[in-house]
């Protein structure tokens, strides 16, 4: 079936395109872009005047919870949430039960995704068996079965020696090592950012230094090994600065930031709503501003949601005992459009890059482009549409978001995966 997208503003940073064009999709691929393609060229025609047509968005950091915690999310519901949120591909972390440290788990994830997910699902394998931080997983097997990177996300790799070996060994497969940076010996039971707010609320703090100390270590290890390091969810001014300096020295390092870290601060913890509890924690306004500057100057390569679904009964508890993490797939794009584009932090073209080509590049995916012949993965969004975040309408199984009721300017409207419209709110 052929689909024609007419009159949209096509933004494809991978090819420096930003103009009003018609896009023709044929047999799952982009078959042509032109100023005017006749309506008769396709069976289905969408008039997208006033909307932006972009390469399909990639969320390189999500937790789909399957296998093991299907009560929180499944590959199916997480995939639906991704599509509704404007994403056409996601990369899912290895901290499932069992852990994705073995090819059989990778096979399972990929087969479930083929069966049930409307979007592309790329598994991330574990760095260490069982996320225990001791023995490396079989990177070669994981790679061969479809893993696009390795990470113990959720747990830091405490041993510097193990991290060094992971960076060295992953080089052989050209896989990025995705680090969850947090020195566990500096955490001491912390549940929120350490600073005035933790003092004010009487909650135990997680200091920025715990994150920065491990980023410093990992950058030095990447430098010495030549391995490819990706720093997950940078959240502090110091973290951004460490990556900025490393990049200037030519270290192979990339990093991502989450929408909650570029939007909220630890002020949001007032009231003790456990939907403000995640790792890394919401930081100070200085840190938040530093994240925005890092996005602006390119230090931060990509935006990723760290979608971490939890059941409401798990979050409806005392702040100290609630699990870390919030859902993000269905708010990420609107937060980016509102906080980054509408407020002038980045151009629309750079925004599209942050959400599509950049994460695809980091993971080595052939995604993030509208070049003729490429997979027809397309995201359509409105820069102007105003929305109010309504968690009761999420496709995700979970509702743990601090953004309920927030008014945002900009919204994803359509997701096309391999030439198939998997979500439309037109």
């Amino acid at each position, binding site marked *: 079936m052929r689909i024609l997208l007419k009159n949209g503003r096509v933004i494809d940073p991978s090819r420096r395109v930003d103009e009003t064009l018609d896009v023709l999709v044929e047999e799952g691929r982009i078959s042509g872009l032109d100023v005017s393609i006749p309506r008769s060229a396709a069976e289905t025609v969408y008039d997208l005047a006033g909307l932006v047509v972009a390469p399909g968005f990639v969320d390189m950091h999500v937790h789909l919870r399957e296998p093991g915690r299907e009560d929180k999310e499944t590959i199916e519901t997480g995939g639906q949430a991704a599509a509704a949120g404007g994403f056409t591909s996601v990369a899912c972390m290895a901290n499932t039960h069992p852990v994705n440290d073995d090819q059989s788990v990778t096979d399972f994830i990929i087969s479930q995704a083929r069966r049930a997910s409307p979007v592309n699902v790329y598994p991330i394998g574990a760095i260490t068996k069982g996320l225990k931080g001791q023995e490396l997983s079989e990177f070669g097997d994981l790679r061969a079965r479809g893993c696009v990177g390795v990470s113990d996300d959720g747990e830091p790799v405490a041993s510097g020696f193990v991290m060094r070996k992971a960076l060295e060994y992953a080089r052989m497969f050209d896989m990025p090592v995705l680090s969850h940076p947090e020195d566990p010996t500096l955490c001491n039971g912390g549940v929120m950012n350490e600073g005035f707010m933790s003092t004010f609320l009487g*909650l135990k703090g997680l200091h920025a230094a715990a994150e920065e100390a491990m980023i410093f270590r990992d950058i030095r290890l990447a430098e010495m090994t030549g391995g490819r390091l990706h720093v997950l969810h940078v959240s502090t001014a110091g973290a951004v600065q460490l990556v900025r300096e490393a990049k200037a020295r030519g270290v192979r390092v990339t990093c991502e930031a989450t929408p909650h870290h570029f939007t909220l601060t630890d002020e949001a913890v007032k009231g003790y709503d456990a939907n403000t509890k995640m790792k890394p924690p919401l930081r100070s306004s200085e840190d938040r501003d530093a994240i925005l500057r890092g996005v602006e100057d390119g230090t931060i390569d990509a935006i990723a949601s760290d979608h971490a679904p939890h059941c409401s009964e798990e979050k409806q508890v005392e702040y100290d005992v609630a699990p870390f993490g919030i859902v993000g797939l269905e708010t990420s794009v609107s937060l980016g459009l509102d906080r980054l584009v509408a407020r002038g932090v980045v151009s629309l073209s750079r925004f599209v890059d942050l959400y599509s080509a950049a994460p695809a590049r980091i993971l080595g995916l052939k995604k993030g482009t509208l070049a003729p012949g490429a997979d027809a993965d397309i995201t359509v969004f409105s820069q102007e549409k105003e929305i109010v975040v309504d968690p009761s309408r999420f496709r995700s199984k979970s509702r743990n978001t601090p953004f309920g009721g927030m008014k945002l300017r900009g919204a994803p409207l359509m997701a096309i995966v391999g030439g198939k419209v998997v979500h439309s709110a037109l």
Partner: protein
Amino acid sequence: MRLKSRHLLGIEPMSAEEITLILDAAESFSEISQREIKKVPTLRGKTVVNLFMEPSTRTRTSFELAEKRLSADSLNFAASASSLVKGETLIDTARNIEAMAPDFIVMRHSMAGAPHFLARHCRSSIINAGDGSHEHPTQALLDAFTIRQKKGRLAGLRVAIIGDILHSRVVRSNVFLLKKLGADVVLAAPPTLMPMGVEKFGVQATNAMDEALRGADVIMMLRIQMERQGKGYFPSVREYFNLFGLTEERARMAKPDAIIMHPGPINRGVEIASSVADGPYSVILDQVTNGVAVRMAVLYLLAGETSDENPAEERPGH
């Protein structure tokens, strides 16, 4: 005038006027406790649940006595927070208690924010009897009442608070209250027990005990939990006492008429010398006495009675 909220979750959200209202009401209730028949019918027919999820003797008995002297029906529900975490959740416990339709829930919990959580899910008035390292509002109120009783005022006094500032809910509530009522506050602790950003409270912070004591009208000592020893907070009780223990000699650095307070239970020889705790300037037992009156005042005001009528004029013994 009435209190704005039907809960007492902390001092921080309260105005100076509300705090003064409670302190003034406590004066009347203090008088009741000196009568031969120490009971008024103010809360007759009201039910109070004392939900204590962390061990506490003095705060619980003080509340219990306050409730009994106001003729409320009170019952104690004790459970450890950790066993609740494993079994029934706080929200289910709260719903079960709610099903018995209490008017008040007095809650002590080892985790900050637990009473705020309860307040979102319950119809009863919640009184925070101490939540983790966050607040202990009735302690600060009874401390303020005691200071006012001894010094006649709070505004302009220099109050030195010394000890484990990091883990103390008593400090946070006291800092909020004392600043709202115009006192100057200085905090002293080793850097390992001083939380970040305390200057933002508008207080002075120091690591030198002598500096905190100089010119103090009030010395408030904090309990040191012995478990902190050897965990990186301080190397030994011996060294802690040498640096931050209140001795007679040190107490002389404060104003000659300075009063000495402690929220209890005291650790003799750890944070305070026996001769000081039992000395003439110690008001530690007055604090305990005043705790009952202050808690009666809190219950009375939260019950929403008009404050025009002096509760002490009600006939006792009914």
